[in-house]
């Protein structure tokens, strides 16, 4: 006798939070076995998330009632805290699970020193738990806390290598994160002062286009823009991501930044939805275009492999910004944005992992001197290229589907009579070209004629995981329909 999936869903959601926390706590308490705990924990959480998503989709709720809300400790909002699972968070949870599992496997090979392992794994598991909680949180203040969990552990991981560049990047990252968090918190406080509740659903129901909401929106948006490294507040990203250990860079660029963006999206689709004005859309869109150009230009300039990848994140997030004005015209476009973010996260993570393998083998990641290693490691270069193709938005990858949908939305705005839509379309289409240029910069040395130099030996994990993840990113195109369907199961969203 199997009960209906709906009945299991709340337990499964809370269980996911509990499980990921438990893994982190156990690893913290027993650092000697942290990597084993991490591995099994990663597998368990991954399996749990997959099971949860199966439950969620199988529950097949109506789009309007799809959010499953779990009252923690039995206390309903507004008194208590609610976990909140809908199509959007489900999608991002699955994304997190995939990237995090890959990163965990990769880290098995990457972090080999015994002492390093003891430090790395607990922090990493906390980060993952924080991300899971972030995506499940349905309470404004709790979002602040989970953001802090994520940022503190992320900063610690950035500084992990202990080099001057890493620590310097970490300090900047931390200060900016604190600034962003405080700004976000100020917004939360304003909202609380106005409405006296913290639960997002309640807030959404009560919010209107008033001055408090406007100021809160400004503060929270700006704070999250800082955290999501949206142009022109992106400058912390390249140093931090460029000098972090490879798996950390992968998670940062793939998930952490996406997490902040998720929050932005969630807020603007819910609480702040009444505020949006066309001018706002255009401003954000223009910032997006600028991000595309600036990030790409910097990626074309940067001399280090990981810097290029990091700046590519800045550029790719430009797409997400460009999508804002599209969403004002076509509210359905938000699903496209999320799909794009998902695909980007997968691709970016695999690029970073591949870059990490190359850096490890060569002992550095200066592009000019990397040719020999690139030539000797075709498998890694292939992963780099495959994920790069996804970034460019070329078929057969998920990036293509995402780009297609974005372009469709952009052209839709033109057809709807928006003149500035031309700019968005040009940016969306042209961005791929810039991406191609910097991906080519990374891959091309592998094709130069010259000696091969395998460099230091790398573990099989580091050899194969990037390729596997890149393949997932490429095949994500086939998951387009499923993802978009899942995303429709988000109440409140148009």
């Amino acid at each position, binding site marked *: 006798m199997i009960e209906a999936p709906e009945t299991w869903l709340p337990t499964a959601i809370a269980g996911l939070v509990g499980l990921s926390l438990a893994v982190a706590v156990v690893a913290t308490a027993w650092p000697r076995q942290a990597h084993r705990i991490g591995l099994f924990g990663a597998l368990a959480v991954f399996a749990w998330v997959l099971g949860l998503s199966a439950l969620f989709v199988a529950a097949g709720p109506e789009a309007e009632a799809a959010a499953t809300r779990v009252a923690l400790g039995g206390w309903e909002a507004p008194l208590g805290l609610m976990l909140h699972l809908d199509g959007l968070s489900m999608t991002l949870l699955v994304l997190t699970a995939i990237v995090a599992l890959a990163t965990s496997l990769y880290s098995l090979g990457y972090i080999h020193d015994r002492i390093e392992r003891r430090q790395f794994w607990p922090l990493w598991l906390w980060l993952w738990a924080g991300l899971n909680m972030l995506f499940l949180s349905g309470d404004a203040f709790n979002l602040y806390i989970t953001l802090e969990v994520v940022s503190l552990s992320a900063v610690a991981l950035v500084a992990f290598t202990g080099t001057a560049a890493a620590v310097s990047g970490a300090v900047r990252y931390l200060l900016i994160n604190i600034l962003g968090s405080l700004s976000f918190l100020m917004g939360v406080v304003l909202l609380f002062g106005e409405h006296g509740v913290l639960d997002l659903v309640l807030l959404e129901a009560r919010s209107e286009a008033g001055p408090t909401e406007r100021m809160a929106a400004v503060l929270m948006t700006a704070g999250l823009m800082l955290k999501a490294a949206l142009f022109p507040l992106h400058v912390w990203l390249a140093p931090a991501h460029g000098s972090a250990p490879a798996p950390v860079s992968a998670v940062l660029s793939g998930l952490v930044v996406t997490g902040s963006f998720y929050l932005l999206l969630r807020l603007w689709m819910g609480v702040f939805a009444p505020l949006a004005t066309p001018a706002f859309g255009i401003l954000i869109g223009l910032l997006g275009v600028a991000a595309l150009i600036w990030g790409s230009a910097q990626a074309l300039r940067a001399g280090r492999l990981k810097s290029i990848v990091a700046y590519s994140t800045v550029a790719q997030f430009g797409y997400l910004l460009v999508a804002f004005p599209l969403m004002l015209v076509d509210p359905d476009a938000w699903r496209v944005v999320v799909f794009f973010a998902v695909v980007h996260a997968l691709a970016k993570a695999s690029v970073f992992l591949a870059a990490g393998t190359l850096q490890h083998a060569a002992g550095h990641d200066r592009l000019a001197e990397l040719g020999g290693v690139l030539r000797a490691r*075709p*498998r890694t270069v*292939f992963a780099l290229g495959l994920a790069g*193709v996804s970034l*460019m938005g*070329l*078929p*057969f990858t998920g990036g*293509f*589907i995402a*780009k*297609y*949908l974005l*372009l*469709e939305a952009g*052209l*839709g705005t033109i*057809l709807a009579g928006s003149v500035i839509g031309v700019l968005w*379309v040009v940016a969306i*289409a*042209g961005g*791929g*070209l810039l991406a*191609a240029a910097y991906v*080519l910069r990374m891959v*091309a040395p592998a*094709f*130069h*004629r*010259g000696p091969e130099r395998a460099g230091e030996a790398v573990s099989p994990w580091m050899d194969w995981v990037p390729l596997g993840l890149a393949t997932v990113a490429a095949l994500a*195109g*086939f998951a*387009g*329909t499923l993802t*978009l*369907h899942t995303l429709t199961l988000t109440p409140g969203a148009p």
Partner: protein
Amino acid sequence: MDGGWLLLAILFSSLGPGIAIFFLPEHRHRLRITLNLGGAGIKLALVGVLLAGVLRGDEYQFSLPLMPGIDLVLAADALSLLFASLSAVLWFVTTVYAIGYLEGSPRRSRFFGFFSLCVSATVGIALSGNLITFLIFYEMLTLATWPLVVHRGTPAALRAGRLYLGYTLTSGLVLFTAIVWLTLLAGAEGFTPGGYLGDLSETHALSLQVLFVLLMIGFGVKAALFPLHSWLPIAMVAPAPVSALLHAVAVVKAGAFGIIRVVNDVYGAELAIELGLTAGLLVVAAFTIIYGSIQALRADDLKQRLAFSTVSQVSYIILGVALAGPLGIIGGLVHLVHQGITKITLFFCAGNFAETLGIHRISELNGIGRRMPLTMLAFTLGGLGMIGLPPLAGFVTKWHLGLGALEAEAHWVLGVLVLSSLLNAAYFLPPIIRGWLGERREPWHEPLRDHAGPTRFETHWMLLFPVVFTAVLGLAVGLFSGLGLSPLGWVSLIVQRDYSLPEFSL
């Protein structure tokens, strides 16, 4: 047997081995050769089965939802079979040639991996059932060919690769935009003979015109239409099998095939004429024909000359399509095959010269006919075929194009054909004459291929046989063009099925 799975099997018969080859260690050359030839052979057989099926009138379709409302559609009609069989046959040959060509050189796993990806993409293009699927494979082709272009790894090769990517990716984006736009306007329809945009011609005439231009820019780069052709001659730095592939089968043909699809199966010839689109295309194609020929005449490097010749010859296909009448389309479509066979022969020959004797320039060709008679013979057949002399393949094309031009009452096109033939003769006859009748005083620098050792033939047999085969094929398709299964017969079938063919056929 379920039709869709056959199409998938055709696709995977090269994709599978390709991916397997990527992960083969460099020294497993026997296994690699087995995979290569096995894949190519299986593909050939499967295409044969499909051919028989389509001839019987069976329907083949496979579709996979990609996005809401948008499917990945593979379908086999007579037109796709034309291109698919061409690629399958020529691919087999090129694979043999490439194995011989690259024997003993490094990085073969990478090369053959991408090589197989290329054929998969090409076959995918052939079997695409709608524009989006077409685009997917089209872009895949761009990416899969780039590693081949830069395979040598010299600075020149990398620059060429950069240029190639620059051109093709930009055009790909234009195409992408245009296709999304079109899909927004008309929905993700499958290719329909006679087009599916008829309903829109009243309301969206201007949009359709702009879209057509965008689509032509998108396809025109690969098809090397006039202002967009510069990458092609420069991409000549690639190894000979790659050039052969770029020019004969994959890349330029993909562009041309796209134009054929758009004109015939998206817009439909009638709508295209009504909107005044074919006239412009005709002028561009005609200009490209002449321009390419003149540039070819100026080139001394053999491969460069062949490249410009491709620029010129591919526009024959487009010319035929732009004539938009049954005979013109027959001419254009049949040239798709004929040009492929002929040009691949020529590039193989150029590769043989370069690889066996280190000859790259036309001025060095003197007397090569005595050293490599079979290759030179093949070159001669290819060159004469390009000029359009009977009974070679090129003649059949030119004949139909000429008749098609008259049928479309574009008499000036005949003048273009005449002029182009003269120019073709002017640049193909000199190397032929030098090869057979020129005197060489100093001895040949040979053997360049020390590792290959002495052979019974004028060069490595894997280099020679493909050349001979394609040359004979080029002769045969022209000589026996009256048969039903010849390319001409097949193309007539296509046109008969899709268009009302006038009373007589020639």
